[in-house]
C-alpha cells in the first residue's frame, strides 16, 4: 500500500496509508489529510488511485500545489515525489511490492525513444564497435529508355508509377495494342517491384514476368517495342 508522509519544519507529523480510491488534502477537517494552516486552501488537492497509478490534482487552490519544486495542475506520482502544499511537505512513497510491479511493467512495455536519444544510443554503440555512423541516403529508382522512345531518363518519384497509354500514366507509351496501363512500378519496403496489369507481356531480362517481380539494378524491361533499363541512384535527401 502506498503512503503519504506529512512533514512540517523537518519533522514528521503523521503518516497516511493509502487505503481507498482517493485522498483529499486541505484545510477543512473533512479532508483525508487535513492541514490546519492558512496557506492551505479548504479543499486544496486530491490524489486518485487507479490500478497501479496515482494521480495528484490541484483543485484550483489559492497558493498552488508543487511537485519536486514545480507547480502542477495534475501529475502522475512517482515513488519519492515531494509534494508541497503551503508550507507543508508531503512525501509520496510506494510499497516495495508496488515498486517492483512498476519496474516489471516498465521493462516489458513498449516505449518510445525521442530522436536525439536514439541517435545518441546508436552513435555510442557504433563507436564501441569502431564504426562510423553512416548517413542514410534514400535510393531512388530511374528508368532509362534504350529503345522505342526519346523520353530519356525518368525518375520514379511516385510510390506507384503507371506505365501505359492512358493520359494519367506517369510513363506514357503508344502503340495499337498498348493497354491504358500495361505495368506499374511500386516502391515497397523491400525495393522496387514491377507488376504486369494489362494482359500485355512484360519482360525483364528477356523473361516474361508473372504478376510482380522485384527489380535489381540494370535490369532490362521490355513492353512491346519499348525497351528500358532500371537502376537506382542515391537521392540528395537524407532519410
Amino acid at each position, binding site marked *: 500500500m502506498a503512503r503519504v508522509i506529512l512533514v512540517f519544519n523537518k519533522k514528521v507529523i503523521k503518516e497516511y496509508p493509502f487505503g481507498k480510491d482517493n485522498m483529499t488534502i486541505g484545510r477543512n477537517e473533512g479532508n483525508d489529510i487535513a492541514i490546519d494552516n492558512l496557506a492551505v486552501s479548504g479543499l486544496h488537492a486530491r490524489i486518485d488511485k487507479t490500478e497501479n497509478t496515482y494521480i495528484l490534482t490541484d483543485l484550483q487552490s489559492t497558493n498552488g500545489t508543487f511537485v519536486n519544486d514545480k507547480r502542477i495542475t495534475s501529475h502522475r506520482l512517482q515513488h519519492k515525489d515531494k509534494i508541497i502544499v503551503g508550507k507543508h511537505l508531503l512525501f509520496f512513497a510506494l510499497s516495495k511490492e508496488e515498486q517492483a510491479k512498476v519496474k516489471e511493467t516498465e521493462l516489458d512495455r513498449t516505449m518510445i525513444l525521442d530522436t536525439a536519444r536514439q541517435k545518441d544510443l546508436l552513435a555510442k554503440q557504433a563507436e564501441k564497435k569502431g*564504426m562510423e555512423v553512416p548517413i542514410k541516403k534514400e535510393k531512388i529508382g530511374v528508368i532509362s529508355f534504350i529503345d522505342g522512345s526519346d523520353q530519356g531518363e525518368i525518375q520514379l518519384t511516385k510510390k506507384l508509377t503507371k506505365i501505359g497509354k492512358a493520359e494519367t500514366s506517369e510513363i506514357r507509351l503508344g502503340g495499337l495494342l498498348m493497354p491504358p496501363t500495361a505495368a506499374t512500378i511500386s516502391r*515497397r519496403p523491400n525495393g522496387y517491384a514491377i507488376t504486369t496489369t494489362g494482359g500485355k507481356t512484360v519482360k525483364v531480362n528477356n523473361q516474361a514476368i508473372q504478376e*510482380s517481380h522485384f527489380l535489381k539494378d540494370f535490369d532490362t524491361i521490355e513492353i512491346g517495342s519499348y525497351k528500358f533499363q532500371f537502376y537506382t541512384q542515391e537521392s540528395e535527401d537524407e532519410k
Partner: protein
Amino acid sequence: MKLTTAGLSDVGLKRGSNEDYFVMDTSTNLYIVADGMGGHLAGEIASKIAANTIQKNVNHWITKDSPEDELFDFPDSTLSRRGNYILSGIRLANRVVYEMSREHAEYKGMGTTIVVLAIMHSAVIAANVGDSRIYLIRGNMIEPLSKEHNMVTEQLEMGLISKEEAETSPLRHILTRSLGSSDTVDADIFEVEPMNNDCFLLCTDGLTDHVSDDEILRIIRNGDDPEHLCQQLVSEANERGGNDNITVSLIFVDRLDGERQGLLKRFWYFFKK
C-alpha cells in the same frame, strides 16, 4: 470489388487489459489496427482515438472528393490523392492524441502504433507508424508493406547487430516513432497494384513476436476462411506465451472488378482517339 474480411483482438495471456484496437470499414474498404501504449487506460484511449480519427476523416474526404490542398498539413507529391487522405488522417490523429496527452496528466506519454490499409481497384495503399505490420500474401510469397520503426531495425540497418541478436534484443520494444508522442509524425506509405486472390494481413507485435513470417504464410495458405484463420493466428501466439495483446485483421481479395483491359477495349480506346 468483392472482399472477404475478418478481424480479431485478444488480450493475450500476460496483460491485464487490451490496448489494441482495430477498425474494419467495408463501406470504403479502410482497415486500421493500432497498438496503444501508456499508463492506466491511456494506451487503450490512444489506439481507439487514433483509429477512429483516421476513419472518420479519411471517409469524409473520400465522400467529398476533397482536393489535396484542403487536407491537414501539406500533401506529399509522391502519393496518389487517396494516399494523401491517409497520410493526412494519420497526421491529424497524431495531433489529436498529442494534444490530449499534454492536456491531461493521466494521458501523459500516451501514444500508439498505427497501420492503415485502403483497397481500391486501382491501388492498395499501406501506411504505418511504429512496429505493427501489414503483409501482402500473394501466391506463395509473403511480403511486408510496412516498415518497423524500432531501435532494433535501426541497429540492423547499421550492421550493429545480427538478425538472431535482433530477435532477442531487449531493445526490440523500443520504438523510434509512434503516433501521439510528438507534435508531428512521419508515416511510411506504400502504394501497390492489387491483384485477384491477394491477401492482406494487418497485425500487432503480439502476433509477430511469437510467429514468424514463414509460419504466418503457412497458416494462411492452409485455409480460406478468414474468420477461422484469425482465430488460428491468435491461438498460435497464445500457445507460445501470449506475452502481449494480439490483434489480426485479414482481407482476401476475391474479385477486383477493375477496368477491363481486353483486346476489344483496347481497340475501342484506339478508335476513340
